[in-house]
């Protein structure tokens, strides 16, 4: 029972890292980016390539996948995404679906369609017992990393100059620009950061979630649930939503496997009917 709770928390933490970039682009920048999962997938594949082809250590792969995905995200933002900030949601949806399709086919072409496996370092394998609760080492590792990242993010968004500039740029881009805030540079940096975090999440999750070319579509719904249920006004909302979703999903799959993913979709629709701006959102819909 507690083991399931623990696994659920680890899963939820992972979802949070994967989705928090999306909560920024979608919530703060108001850009419907369905291609977010593609960045996560890219991170996963970077790890796979580095570990299995070049034999690098897992610990080096994590920052590498972060930086590579941030780079990809930054370049795409500068070249393509920024043109669509003002476009209609339909355009954004079409564009990002196109990107998802391309990434799926490209990965399929280069890496093949099979499930990719990575070999975790020996010290992260296995599990140990604490007071009768089975704790997977790797899951503990994920929880630790994600908790640190969540705290850093929260502090960065509320306490630093960059964070307040970002919030200003989002609230009213024109005024922020007038006050000398470099709005477009900040958006680009934020987008890169979000993509990088997705990449890191993909690298961490390659073992737990499984990695194959259909990854962006398979987990898209999870990311979207985290963001919409959590609301988009802060980091805490998505964080709690991700934890709840993780626990509910792991617990649901364990106790009532025949219902499958049914529960979470139903819960999501119910939440959206009752509170269209998310559980923790502010009422003023942007």
């Amino acid at each position, binding site marked *: 029972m507690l083991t399931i709770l623990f696994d659920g928390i680890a899963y939820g933490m992972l979802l949070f890292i994967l989705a928090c970039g999306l909560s920024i682009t979608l919530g703060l920048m108001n850009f419907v980016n369905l291609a977010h999962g593609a960045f996560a997938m890219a991170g996963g594949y970077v790890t796979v390539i580095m570990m299995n082809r070049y034999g690098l250590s897992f610990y080096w792969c994590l920052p590498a996948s972060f930086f590579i995905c941030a780079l990809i995200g930054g370049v795409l933002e500068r070249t393509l995404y920024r043109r669509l900030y003002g476009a209609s949601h339909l355009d954004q949806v079409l564009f990002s679906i196109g990107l998802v*399709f391309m990434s799926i086919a490209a990965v399929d*072409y280069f890496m093949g369609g099979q499930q990719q496996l990575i070999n975790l370092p020996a010290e992260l394998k296995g599990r140990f017992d604490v007071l009768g609760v089975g704790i997977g080492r790797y899951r503990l590792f994920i929880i630790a990393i994600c908790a640190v990242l969540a705290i850093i993010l929260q502090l960065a968004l509320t306490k630093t100059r960059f964070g307040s500039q970002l919030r200003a740029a989002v609230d009213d881009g024109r005024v922020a620009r007038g006050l000398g805030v470099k709005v477009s540079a900040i958006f680009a940096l934020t987008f890169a950061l979000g993509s990088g975090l997705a990449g890191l999440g993909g690298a961490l999750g390659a073992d737990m979630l499984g990695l194959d070319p259909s990854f962006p579509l398979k987990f898209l719904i999870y990311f979207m649930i985290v963001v919409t249920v959590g609301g988009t006004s802060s980091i805490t909302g998505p964080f709690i939503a991700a934890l709840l979703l993780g626990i509910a999903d792991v617990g649901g799959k364990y106790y009532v496997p025949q219902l499958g993913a049914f529960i979470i979709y139903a819960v999501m629709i119910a939440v959206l*009917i009752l509170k269209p701006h998310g559980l923790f959102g502010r009422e003023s819909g942007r």
Partner: protein
Amino acid sequence: MSETLAHTAQSASEILRRRERWQIWEVALWIIAFAAIFVLPSHMLILTEIAILALFALSLDLILGYAGIVSLGHTAFFGLGAYVAGILARDYTGEPVTGLLVAGLVTGAFGFLSSFLVLRGSDLTRLMTTFGVAMLLAEVANQAAWLTGGADGLSGVMMTPILGLFEFDLWGRTGYIYVLLVLMILAFIARRIVNSPYGLSLKAIKRNSRRASMLGISPTRRIVVIYSIAAAYAGMAGALLTQTTSFVSPDVLAFHRSADVLLVLVIGGTGYLYGGIFGAIVFTLLRDWLSVITPQYWMFWIGLILIAIVMIGRERVAGWRNLLPGQRKSRKAAPLAVEDAP
């Protein structure tokens, strides 16, 4: 005062009548579609596919082009219709027209219920709820194996002759004629709907719902109605697919179908009904051609096309329809007419 009012009313009904008038290219399109029965007898299957996709895209156009609802899960209705028709044919009666009507009724009712979900919230909430409904149905179809065959799909669908008279033949000729007739009848009905005052009021809601409600046009009921109609259309398209292929796979509820139909509509242009038909022709031929060249990776090119269309601008891509005979002229002659630009 009353004279100007009368004049306005007259010119308004004049506009309505002009919009409803048949264009040369419309007539030509239907003639070509029927001529294909004799000219291209060996391509009946792909033509059937095009016609079904066209009907599906037409139903999306009703809600996207006329009511402005962006749906990521329109395939929910398509898939539901396909399963309803399949189960009906397997367990009760294999008569296609009955199956078509029942599928239309069931999906229409489902669309009516789910339309209350799209009334609330912003674009994003709508995207999520439509997407969620489609995923939910896909999950149900996958889990309820006793009813739907689960991941293996629904087999054992046996179709009897249409109305007891016309048997489905091996080359798909009867199937094509049947699908084409259904498409034509439904397209005519849709044409009547969108050119009626009701259709115009929908356009008003799409362009500015607050102003529309100030003019006394209540968005809620109109959106519910058009959403239910569109759902019934999509369900009938799904039923046609089941009936012409005698099989339902869980693929009918897959996400890529919702994306495909959006692409179809974007290629053809939204908001004038025929976009779905033109788009379906272009899309199906394109996909066929691509999947011959790169059987496994055609998705890449579809994605590239999507991005290119968005980057170039949807209006410019769909702008070719101004070249159709009669289209530009009527616009010049009617400066009062509501512009179609979305």
